């Protein structure tokens, strides 16, 4: 069935447009049709044929379906550039939407929705209204999607004309395809709207689960994705839902399988019976494994998702590690992901086999893959204490092959192993030193230098080794310079003899006077001052015992993981980033012109994001550091006291200046301005919570606003705070009256400090849980604004001042040290 349409591309003579114009107005049907094809061909190769608008639209009134479709296609492309002329098409559209042939009715309403011209949209409403109630399901399913199109162009119009209700009615439609499209449309509208539009109630749930059995594979995906937002009220309901969804695991379409897995995992959180959970895990394993025989692109998505799933439920695939062994012909992106999962599934039981595999991979040709394999061995050593020795012996075998990048990578991971198991494996240092002069990559060099500095007392010729690097100090990359600086200081403190003393002079001179790198200079000055004022203190700081590092293969934090698991199968789960990190709500603004120019920075941005995504990109965008968080607080208190206080504390710490705290000159926020929304109605099934820490009359309060957008009265509100750095906790019970539908209530909850202090690194995260008698527990995060610890006139109370100040100091010391250690030891 091959066509010969290519001939339409071949009219590239001069005067093409007038010629086409003439043909379009020909009295012969066939000639007109050929002319329209030529126009579309020209459009396809990117020529501007918008000047033929009127002539093409004139061909619209035709019985010939093919010609009609072509004209419609033309309209979709050029209506925007000719909005005034587009109105010419409206009559035909309206007429077509009443055509006896359902194909034409659907075509008309589908195309009208694609024409993003305001004037047209107004005329779309009546046909759309009719089509939503059409007798033919083909038309109704098209109309359902069209509501979402209209909402995208003009949300108000959709709400005013009651299309949302018509759309909701379609959920009860007797045709499964119509139901599925209505669900897709509603889910999209809900996503872009602040109010609760698409609530999944129990009757809706039942209807959708029934439709699930009958609609097309794509429709099943829409329904499963929408339903995964549903929170079952109790374990029983969750079990029932899961029971209805599990048959989907047998579907041949991988998207259906993954969406079913997502839904089951969501409901599993509520199921208490361990038997049921174990059984479900058993049921999910085989379909997940089978995804790995799909096309490589799908395998990639599946692997990124399995990576998340095994972090939450390691038992599911605990016995399936073999299926993640790389095949010879796997594309490299599949191999990389498999490796990542192998590390996660590695255990004392299977480590021997896994190590054999890694060793095999380390002799492959793809350099990135080899490096990752070597690194994987190191990560297993860090993760599995009992296997560490075996891992190291494999690494040493690899070093002996003397392939340059393998050696370098091995040294990098061995440094981490030393940090994980101090004073255990240092006997291999001698072997490492043999490859010293082959190192040419900054990270490997820096790692080796770190090892020399750290174990200077056990390496006889440590000073010679370091000295060999010093000659090229100015040319080294910053990473290596920093390590050299630190290592020399360590060497000097451990062996304060003449040689090292000379070396340190050279290094400090190089790193202060001769450099433009502020990081290096700052660190050098700190060392210098430390060494010159109090060498003993310097010893305490520099040679202090380092915190033992741990395995980072489960690197995602639990809240992020929750969010990602709720997004299984979507891009979010592929990037390992929450959706708002990459979804831009820049809707119509982005459609500039066809030849818009992009800044040249494009390429670097691209590679950055790429590497982020590839790294598993767990890096949360907002740092948890104190000054940052304070600077990010909402508008009412722009010059927050915290940043003002920081520099002085810092200088105080370094001992340069007096220890006066600069009082902040801004009063704290009162309860007047609107509170930030922390739980949007969309995620709270209609309950919206806004909250902020405030200070009133010398006391800290949590100011909360509850808005009930659900259909039922909510009561029995309770609140709880997770452990946090400031030990903030509720001083009394939450007092919220029962909320009728549509009602809202504002309350001030008195707070106390230092009640449930967390032990982790200080940060300003405040995790809050709120529940009521009607809904499940809602969790949301808030930022602790530091100004609440100051009195209204900007001064801190004496009592809390002391405590908070010490906390400040701890925080700062912590960050200072952490930054230093991180910089020294590298991440």
């Amino acid at each position, binding site marked *: *069935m*091959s*066509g010969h349409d290519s001939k339409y591309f071949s009219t590239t003579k001069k005067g093409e447009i007038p010629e086409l114009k003439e043909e379009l107005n020909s009295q012969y049907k066939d000639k007109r049709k050929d002319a329209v094809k030529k126009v*579309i061909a020209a459009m*396809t190769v*990117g020529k501007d044929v918008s000047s033929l608008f009127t002539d093409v639209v004139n061909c619209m009134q035709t019985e010939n379906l*093919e010609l009609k479709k072509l004209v419609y296609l033309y309209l*979709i492309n050029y209506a*925007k550039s000719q909005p005034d002329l587009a109105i010419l098409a409206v009559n035909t559209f309206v007429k077509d939407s009443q055509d006896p042939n*359902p*194909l034409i009715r659907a075509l008309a309403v589908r195309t009208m929705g*694609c024409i*993003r011209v305001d004037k047209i949209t107004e005329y779309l409403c009546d046909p759309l209204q009719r089509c939503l109630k059409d007798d033919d399901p083909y038309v109704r399913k*098209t109309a359902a999607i069209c509501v979402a199109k209209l909402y995208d162009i003009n949300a108000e119009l959709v709400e005013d004309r009651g299309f949302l209700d018509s759309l909701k009615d379609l959920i009860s439609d007797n045709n499964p*395809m119509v139901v599925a*499209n209505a669900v897709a449309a509603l889910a*999209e509208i809900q996503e872009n709207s602040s109010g609760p539009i698409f609530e999944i109630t129990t009757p809706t749930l039942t209807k959708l689960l029934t439709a699930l*059995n009958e*609609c*097309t594979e*794509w429709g099943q*995906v*829409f329904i499963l994705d929408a339903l995964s937002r549903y929170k079952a009220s109790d374990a029983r309901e969750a079990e029932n839902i899961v029971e209805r969804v599990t048959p989907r695991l*047998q*579907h*041949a*379409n991988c*998207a259906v399988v993954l*969406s079913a897995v997502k839904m089951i995992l969501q409901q599993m959180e509520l199921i208490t019976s361990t038997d049921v959970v174990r059984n479900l895990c058993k049921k999910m394993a085989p*379909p997940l*494994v*089978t995804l790995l*025989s799909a*096309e*490589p*692109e799908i395998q*990639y*998505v599946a692997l990124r998702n399995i990576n998340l799933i095994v972090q939450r439920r390691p038992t599911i695939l605990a016995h399936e590690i*073999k*299926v993640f*062994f790389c*095949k*010879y012909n796997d*594309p*490299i*992106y599949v191999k990389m992901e498999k490796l990542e999962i192998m590390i996660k599934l590695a255990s004392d039981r299977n480590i021997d*086999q896994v190590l*054999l595999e890694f060793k*095999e991979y380390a002799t492959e*040709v793809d350099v990135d893959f080899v490096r990752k394999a070597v690194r994987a061995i190191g990560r297993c050593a860090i993760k599995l204490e009992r296997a560490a020795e075996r891992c190291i012996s494999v690494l040493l075998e690899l070093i002996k092959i003397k392939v340059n990048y393998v050696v370098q990578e091995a040294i990098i991971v061995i440094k981490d192993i030393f940090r994980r198991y101090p004073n255990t494996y240092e006997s291999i240092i001698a072997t490492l030193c043999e490859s010293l002069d082959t190192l040419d990559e900054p990270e490997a060099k820096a790692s080796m230098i770190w090892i020399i500095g750290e174990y200077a007392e056990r390496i006889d010729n440590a000073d010679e080794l370091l000295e060999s690097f010093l000659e090229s100090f100015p040319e080294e990359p910053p990473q290596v310079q920093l390590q050299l600086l630190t290592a020399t200081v360590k060497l000097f403190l451990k062996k304060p003899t003449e040689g090292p003393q000379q070396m340190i002079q050279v290094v400090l001179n190089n790193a202060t006077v001769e450099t433009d790198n502020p990081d290096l200079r700052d660190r050098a000055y700190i060392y210098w001052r430390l060494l010159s004022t109090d060498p003993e203190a310097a010893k305490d700081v520099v040679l202090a015992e380092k915190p033992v590092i741990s395995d980072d293969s489960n690197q995602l934090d639990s809240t992020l993981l929750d969010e990602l698991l709720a997004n299984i*199968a*979507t891009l*979010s789960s592929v990037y390992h980033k929450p959706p708002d990190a990459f*979804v831009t709500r*820049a809707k119509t603004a982005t459609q500039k012109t*066809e030849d818009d120019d*992009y800044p040249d920075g494009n390429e670097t941005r*691209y590679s950055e994001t*790429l590497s982020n995504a*590839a790294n598993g990109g767990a890096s949360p965008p907002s740092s948890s550091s104190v000054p940052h968080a304070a600077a990010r607080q909402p508008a009412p208190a722009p010059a927050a006291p915290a940043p003002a206080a920081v520099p002085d504390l810092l200088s105080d710490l370094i001992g340069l200046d007096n220890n006066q705290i600069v009082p902040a000159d801004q009063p704290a926020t009162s309860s007047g301005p609107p509170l930030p929304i922390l739980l949007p109605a969309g995620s709270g099934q209609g309950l919206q919570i806004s909250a902020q820490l405030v200070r009133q009359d010398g006391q800290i309060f949590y100011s909360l606003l509850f808005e009930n957008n659900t259909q039922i009265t909510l009561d029995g509100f309770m609140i709880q705070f997770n452990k946090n750095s400031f030990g903030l906790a509720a001083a009394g019970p939450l007092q919220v009256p029962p909320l009728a539908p549509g009602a809202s209530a504002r309350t001030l909850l008195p707070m106390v400090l230092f009640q449930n202090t967390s032990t982790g690194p200080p940060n300003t995260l405040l995790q809050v849980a709120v529940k009521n008698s009607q809904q499940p527990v809602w969790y949301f995060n808030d930022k602790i604004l530091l100004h609440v610890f100051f009195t209204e006139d900007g001064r801190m109370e004496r009592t809390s001042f002391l405590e908070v100040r010490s906390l400040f100091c701890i925080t700062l010391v912590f960050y200072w040290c952490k930054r230093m250690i991180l910089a020294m030891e590298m991440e």
Partner: protein
Amino acid sequence: MAGAASALFLLDIKGRVLVWRDYRGDVSAAQAERFFTKLIEKEGDPQSQDPVVYDNGVTYMFIQHSNVYLMTATRQNCNAASLLFFLHRVVDVFKHYFEELEEESLRDNFVVVYELLDEIMDFGYPQYTEAKILSEFIKTDAYRMEVTQRPPMAVTNAVSWRSEGINYKKNEVFLDVVESVNILVNSNGQIIRSDVVGALKMRTYLSGMPECKLGLNDRVLLEAQGRATKGKAIDLEDIKFHQCVRLARFENDRTISFIPPDGSFDLMTYRLSTQVKPLIWVEAQVENHSRSRVEIMVKARSQFKERSTATNVEIMVPVPADASSPNVRTSMGSAAYAPENDALLWKIRSFPGGKEYMLRAEFTLPSITDEEATQERKAPIRVKFEIPYFTVSGIQVRYLKIIEKSGYQALPWVRYITMAGEYELRLI
């Protein structure tokens, strides 16, 4: 959660847009083309590039088929699995229409391509991808009729894969049970992974709307029915069904019941991860004599029952890339040097069970080697074969019942075959 594609692009091998369909008006063709050509240029080999790439607010997902790339662009958090799978389905649809999907066929049929793009996706949501039914109302020029087309009932029916009113003079069903053996043996001769992926491939030529019921020797079912299993029942580990099979019913009572699509399709696939003895075992010994000569000895042994015979056996033994002047002797079949694959290809047309064959090959190597030479990729030995009338799993079709209201008799033909899938043995 919700999310849909902004546009679908069909690009040529250099990343230039051949045909595209804009669904949402928020990603332009120029933008996508600029991104993708840059990507291809930079990577050289787009095969190694992640199939999901983020650039400047837009996520691109792509697959390649012959000299065409199919790519979606989106600004939302859409379902990646669904869209990538959809792209593969689009390939199937185009292949059904144009026999082969390639640049030329797209150009030659751009009108139909546009029509299809309009029907298979709406506002970025996948809608309908049953090629057979689509071709009932979207036709290429040669078959286009002047009668007005209507959407076939099937498009919105619960049975969306089959049209009504199909008629055959002779009603027949062909059922092929095909099992592929995947195996990975490491250089110590240990089997590190082995599984069997089976598929029930059907070709149906049936009139009307036939109700089919398939009975297998499925242990779970037989035990539930309280029948004596006599050791013949098998455990199917992970079964995947074509969308025509009623999944809820299968979950309830393990009955495989369905109304099949017309023509050929995969009714179900399954997987068994029980360890199988490698059907054909290959051992290779590589000896480097001095620096200029390498000798390879290969032993191949069939480890299945004597009454079965493997056919079209191909054993691919990797040899160094710079080897030359081959000298090969075999005890059975023929062997040829395939320099384009850096391998020796040993073909044995018929390989009965319980036999062992040998191959001995000698190559000369250049006596001068580059000291800095990068390592060669260590390819495994790969084996291909087919064994007819035999399944590893022992799966059996007990019955295939076909009931249609007109009451015709249909003939089911069942055939079994086992083949090598990814059958790799790593060299020492």
